Structures are given as C-alpha cells and as structure tokens.
C-alpha cells in the first residue's frame, strides 16, 4: 500500500541521512578540507578527542537522569498500562523541594558547613514530596479510572500535569530559581581513565547507579517487588494469590515518585535552575527513553535513558553538523523526538523488549 511504501521511504531516508552524516563526520576528522565538507560545511573543524569525551560524559550524566525518571513511566505502564503524563511534574516537585530546602540551608550557613548532611536532607525531602505527589495523584485521579478505556487516564494525566505545573507557578511564582553552588571539593574537575569529568557529573552518575541498584534489589529480591511483578503480569490472578493489588499499585507509584525525586535533586544540582516548566521536556524525553528501552522493562528504561542522553548530546555534532545544518545545538530536543519516531518505526517494542501483561500488548 501507498502508506507502507511511504514509511519504507522514510525509514530508508532517515537511515541514509544518519549513515551519510556519520561518514561525512569521519571523513571530516581525517581531512577537514575534503570535497564533501567544502560543499556542505566549509567551516568544519571536526571534534578533538577531548571534546568528544566531554560530549559523551555530559550525554551520559543527562541520560542517567532521564533513566531515573523513565523508571517511573516504565513501572506505571507495566502495572496499569497507561502513560502517566504527569510523572514529569513529580520530578519537578522534587527539584522544587530541593531548591526551597537548599536555599534555606544556604541562608543559615549550613550548606557550606556541613554539605553532606544537607545533601542527605534535601534528597530525603525531595523523595518525600515527590512520593507524596505521585501517591496523591494515583489516589485522586487514576484509581477511579482503573477500568476505563486506555485514553481516558492518559487525558486525565495531561490535566493533572497542567494542574500541578500551574499550582507550583501560582505558589512559587514564575521566576527561575537557582540552587546554591556546590562546594569546591565536590565540583572540581577530576580525571578518571583519561576522561576529564566535572565533580557534579560524577556525582550524578554515582547517585544514579546507586539508586538503580537499590531499585533493582527492591524489585527483584523483596516480597514487595515480587508482588509488583505479579500485578504487572496479571492483576486478577495476583489478587487471587493474596496480593493486595491497590497497595501494590500505590507502592509502584511511590517507588517511581522516589526515583523522580532523586532525579529532580540531581537535575537541580547540575543545571542549578528550576522553574515550574522544568518537568515538561525531561518528562517527555524520559518517556521516550522508556520506549527506547522497551516499556515495562526496568533495565531497559535506564539503558534507554543513557542512550537517549548520549544520542541527544552527540548526534547534533556527529550527524547534523557535517551535513551542513547550522545552529545544531538548538535542535537537541528535535533530535530526541526524532529518536522516538525512529524507534517506533523500526522496533516499537524497544531495544530490550517490552514487559507488559497480555492485555496491554494489543
């Protein structure tokens, strides 16, 4: 059919573009003044090894944050089979809580004096408020819609997202809020395995890895985790086996919320600026990561986040620049969305496979 032919054309076109871009990039690295570069991108300078590593590190650290948020999308989708569009707002609430607390800590001097304690406190507070937001959302907006058609909870979650965004705007005002500076001993540049890495980014990577490990332990090794997996597989049978389905769903939301809270703090510490809109784009990108990794699949969500983060940070320089597109850094978000379309065109079940109950796979 015409549509199929068109889709094939799109697939071929996109792949060709990517291949040509990469080849042009390689050629440009070898010889910056080659024929293709003179035609498309005469000012090409190419990337030095350090620049490339820098891009990779920033992609990885940003990607691990996407991964943390994506876990929430993936788990909720696995259990309830709908996209919790408002999950980005849970993340924003975490970042906002972190700002308010750290701002107060800085005002009374504790931030410089005892940074580690402050960090622990703000992480705990962010986890608390994010979890609280997620659980309230579930109770008020999603539970009554448990058995309605699939699009109804999605539309509801769009409304919830809008509401939370604007409630935060109303309460805390539209100004962009900046986190206090990190202490020098943490933020300074380090060199690990020839990678120059800022302390903040290193912290993000470490914290993300630790959270992921904790989550993995909870889901794979504890009774609660087993209940969650059972509910994701089949709610009715799980309840016949004596699992409290409602409570397990609340736990799922709570765990996802906690991860988003950690992600929010990391985001705030790294980019140091939070507004009420902070949750939107990372939210959509985190969903993209969840799809890339295969929705319902937790390891996949983390891997998807890291791949999306790296793609978003490297692809503009690697593919678009050699093709002669100016101002590539503006197209970062467009690249992320293109990745989503690409994955859904080529492998709708994600790179690592979906894990959904049979009724949701339709």
């Amino acid at each position, binding site marked *: 059919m015409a549509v199929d032919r068109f889709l094939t054309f*799109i697939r071929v076109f996109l792949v060709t573009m990517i291949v040509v871009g990469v080849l042009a990039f390689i050629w440009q690295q070898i010889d910056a003044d080659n024929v293709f570069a003179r035609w498309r991108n005469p000012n090409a300078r190419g990337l030095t090894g350090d620049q490339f590593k820098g891009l990779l590190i920033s992609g990885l650290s940003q990607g691990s944050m996407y991964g943390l948020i994506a876990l929430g999308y993936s788990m909720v989708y696995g259990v309830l089979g709908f996209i919790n569009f408002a999950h980005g707002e849970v993340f924003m609430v975490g970042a906002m809580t972190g700002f308010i607390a750290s701002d107060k800590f800085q005002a009374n001097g504790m931030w410089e004096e005892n940074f580690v304690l402050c960090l622990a406190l703000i992480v705990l507070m962010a986890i608390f408020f994010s979890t609280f937001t997620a659980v309230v959302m579930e109770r008020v907006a999603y539970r009554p819609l448990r058995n309605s058609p699939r*699009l109804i909870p999605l539309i509801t979650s769009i409304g919830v997202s809008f509401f939370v965004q604007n409630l935060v705007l109303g309460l805390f005002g539209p100004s962009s809020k900046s986190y206090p500076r990190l202490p020098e001993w943490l933020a300074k540049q380090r060199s690990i395995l020839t990678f120059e890495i800022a302390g903040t980014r290193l912290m993000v990577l470490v914290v993300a890895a630790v959270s992921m490990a904790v989550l993995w332990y909870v889901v794979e090794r504890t009774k609660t985790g087993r209940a969650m997996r059972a509910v994701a597989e089949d709610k009715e049978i799980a309840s016949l086996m004596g699992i409290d389905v409602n409570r397990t769903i609340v736990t799922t939301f709570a765990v996802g919320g906690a991860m988003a809270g950690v992600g929010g703090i990391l985001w705030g510490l790294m980019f140091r600026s939070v507004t009420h809109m902070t949750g939107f784009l990372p939210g*959509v990108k985190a969903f993209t990561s969840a799809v890339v990794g295969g929705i319902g699949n937790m390891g996949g969500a983390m891997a998807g986040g890291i791949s999306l983060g790296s793609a978003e940070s490297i692809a503009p320089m690697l593919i678009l620049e050699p093709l002669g597109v100016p101002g590539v850094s*503006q197209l970062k978000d467009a690249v992320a969305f293109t990745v989503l379309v690409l994955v859904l065109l080529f492998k709708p079940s994600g790179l690592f496979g979906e894990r959904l109950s049979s009724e949701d796979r339709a």
Partner: protein
Amino acid sequence: MNVRVAPTPSSILDQDWSKVLRWGLICGGALIAICLVGMPVEMDRRILIERYLSLGYLSVLFIPVLVGWVASTQVVLEGVEARKQGLFDLVTGFVVGAIGGGFLALLMVALDSWNLRDPLVNWSPKLFRFLTYENGMGFGAVAWIVTGAVLGLVGASFHIMPRVVRRVTTFVVFGLISLSILESVIDDLSEGFRLEWLDEFMFAKKGGLTLTSTIVIGAVIGVLSLVADGRMKAATERYRNLEGVERQKTSIVLFVVVAVLCIVLPMFLGKIVNELLANVGLFLLLALGLNIVVGLAGLLDLGYVAFFAVGGYTTAVLTSPNSPWFAPELHFGFALIFVVIFATITGLVIGAPVIRMRGDYLAIVTLGFGEIIRLLFMSDWLGPYFGGAQGVTNIPGVDLGFATVKGTDPRSVFYLVLFFCAIAIYVSWRLQASRLGRAWMAIREDEQVAEAMGINTVSSKLMAFVVGAVLASFSGAVLAAKVGSVFPTSFMILVSIIILVVVIVGGMGNIAGVMVGSFVLIGVLGGPKQPGLLQEFQNFKLLIYGLLLVFMMLKRPEGLVPSARRSRELHQEEFLQDAWLQGDKLDSDDEVSVSDGGGEEQ
C-alpha cells in the same frame, strides 16, 4: 426484588466522623491553596455586586458551599432506597464548612506570625488584609469560621429544599453571576442599541451590579425560572418529536434565525466584544478540526498545533512582503489554496508514521511532532526561510475588494472567522453521517472489528488527520491575517492542550458540544494568549483548565453536551450493570441498555 431503605441515623450527632473530617480537610486544603495561589487578592479588583461581593471573595466563598453540598450527598447503593435527608445532613455540611473556615483562621494566624514570602510569593500582608476584612485578626478568625459553617450549611440545605426552591435559587445565583460576568458585553450591546439607561441602571460606575439592580434582576430571574419551569424541556422535546416536512421547516426557521443573529449582532457590538468573538471563532475552528480527529476517529493528537502553525506560516510567507526568503505577496484567497495543499501534505506526513501505533504512543509521538515543527521554525537552520525567533511580520489583511479584513477592525475578522466556521460546521455535520464518518466512529469503538467489517482503517485514519489538519490550517491562516505577524512562540504545545480541553469539556464527537465548549472556555476564561471576559483570570486560567480536564474525565467524560453514541461507549459498564440489575425485564424491554444515553447522570 426486595428494596431496602438505607438506615436512618439515630441522632444528628451519629455522624460518620472520619468522613466529615476528611471533607473538612479537603475544604480547608482547597481554601488555603486558593489563597496561596493568589486568586482572592488578584481578583478582588473585579467587582460583581457593588460594595458587597468581588470576584476575589467569590473565589473563596464558593468552596464551603460546594464541599458542604458534596459532603452531605447521600451515597445510595444500587437496590437500596435513599433515606429522607434532614437535619442530620445539615449538621454534616455545617461541621465541614466550619473546619474549612478554621483552616483559613489558622492560615491567618500563620500569616501574622511568620514570614514565608521567600518561597511562597503570595504570602503577603495584602492576603492578610483580605482575610481579616481589615478588621483585626480576632474578628477575621471568628468571622471565617462562622461564614464557613453557614456556607457549608447552605450547601447541605440544597438536599432538603423543595425542588421549586432549589430551582429558583440556582437560577437566581447563576443568572446574577453570569450577568455580572457578561458586564462588558451588556455594556457594548446597550450602547449599540441605544439603551444606555439599562446599562446605567444595572451596573455601578466602577463595575459590578448595583444593589438595587441585583434585587430587581434577581426577582425577575426567579419569576422567569418559575414560569419557564418545564417549558424549555417541553419545547425541545416537541422539536425532537417532529417528523418529516415539519421538522425540516422548523429547522430552517431556526437556522435562519441563528444565521441572521450571527450576521446582524456584531454590527451593534463594539471592538472589545467583536475581538472576543473573533478569538472564540478562531478556537472554535481549531476545536472543530480536533473534534474530527479525537472525537470522531478517536486518535488523540497532542501535536495538533503543528497544523495551526503550518497554516499561519504558509499564509505569512506567501502574503507578506517581509518574508525573508521568498515573498510572492499573493492575495490571501490565492494563498489559501497553498495552505490547503501544505496542510494536507503535513497531515499525511505526520499521520503516516503514527496511525499504526497504539493510541497512547500516538499521543506522545504527535506531541513530539508538534514540538519538532515549532523547534524547526525557530531554529537557525530554517531561520533564513521563516525568520527564526523574529518570525514573519507585516502580513497584509485580507483585501475583499469592498472591504479589508485586518486586526484593527475586529468586526471584519469576526465575519471572516464566521465564514470559515460555517464551512467547518457544515463539513463536520455532513461528514458525521457519511460513510467516512461512520467508519471513523467504528474505528474509535473497536479497530479490529472495524477492519473485519471491511473498513480500510489506514486510509480512514489518514483522512481524519487530513481533514483536521486543513481546518486547523484555516484557523492559522486567519490568525496570521488578523495579527499581522507569526512567531514560533504562538504555536506552543499549550495551544494543543487548551483545544483538547475545549473539545473534551464541550463534548467529544458533538458539534454543538464543541461550540458550547469554545464559547464558555475561550469566551470566559480566554485562550493561551487571548484574554476572555474575565481578564482577572489571566494568571489562573491554565490552572483551571487543568482542573477542569481532570474533573471532566473523572465525573463526566462525555462532556457538557454529550453525543449520545459516545456517552454510551464511555458508560458501557454502567449500562450493562443496570441491565443486569433489571434482571429478566431485559427481554421484554430491550431499551433498558440504550435509552436516554445522552442524559445519563453519574
């Protein structure tokens, strides 16, 4: 079937206290949230009834009434007869309201003792003065607890009033509120019809109804509601039951009346109201398009704004002399042909990859496309062609030979929008009952079954995308001609979501519903950038849109003016349950499961 009566409580204090406390907390939480979001202080400027009621106070006062009413509603289980409500429920409402008022009193104490202005921007002395009525804290605290309790009581008393009293009260209250909201329209109309005396009688100089006019108008509305009781319903019923030629005749008369009103009325209206109507029309056009995609075909398109942007940019590039790269300076009408072509292409290009996806993936991917298109228009890459962040300016108005439609003359814009809306309404109406429209509805209800019935789902879905895209691009074209410039910031995702709210609140899949939705929401609250009748809501409308969307999805997913078929789909389980409860009656009376689908209350 044996019918049991719900147990009557032994005394008025035999309340379900945990429930009362819960509702009290909800009431208090809502009140505090409203105060801290800054609604009361900011909306205190808008006066509804001179010296007695401002929109700010109304925004706080309606909460206890509403919560009191909800809290004292009886939950009647299926097969159990409701008990008679009385003093018992009044006590519930009273306590709930008092708890809410108590929270406000606590807020007042907190406002007085701490300064939390740093994170909470609305923690201000102004709020304190508002809450205390400038009469000191002791007075304020007692006053709020008492007011809360009384209002809760009023809310609860709605359950025990006789029907007539309830009806009259609701009519009077809502009538008065809508009249004072419509103040600027009435101002404008009375000027147009040389009825300044009416305006002077009704409204005070500084805005708001005067006390005398409130009483007089209230009385008039009350009497009218008594007189009209049941007649409106009877009239619509009669119209519905008309058959054949007679129905056709009545329909034609109705149509002519509406058309004449639409054409004549704007001549008597001033700039502000015409501008408002033009905005409503623009969004109505968008909403009608989205109604085809979401309401009829059931494809949740969150990137609908992309087509709006394509329409706007195509018109801008083709008609403006300032277009940065290619400026043929075509006439608007000629440009419109290209608008349709480009919208169709965009609809196909966006539609083709997404139509095979699951419904929820489709939503997110279209959202992505909406963002991609905006980012591309804004980027340096396409900047040389579309002006980047500076946009395209100096778009000429529409030269019709005898008149020019441009933004400075909102009346002409309204007529242009009216023309396009008429086309859109006609197209949607004809499509609904057509082969294609029925195919869309079948796909919405069950795609696999539709395919099995021989419907080509792929091309039907693509058609929905294309028709929606063309309607949205018309709206974009008119917007470009009206404003005279297009910028990427006019095409945020926000627009898509607001249109979605309009369609859902009005009633998915129903043309009349979509019209009601755009008039009520865009007209009163305003669009993403356009102010509505209540300009004071400017900072809060998105909050209200979000809340409305959640509320509608939870309580009435079929919308204010539902389409019968859609609401039957959404409440399928309840219908089945009802049918099951009716038991063997089902065989003799097969209407049970489908009758009055439209008016089903939850």
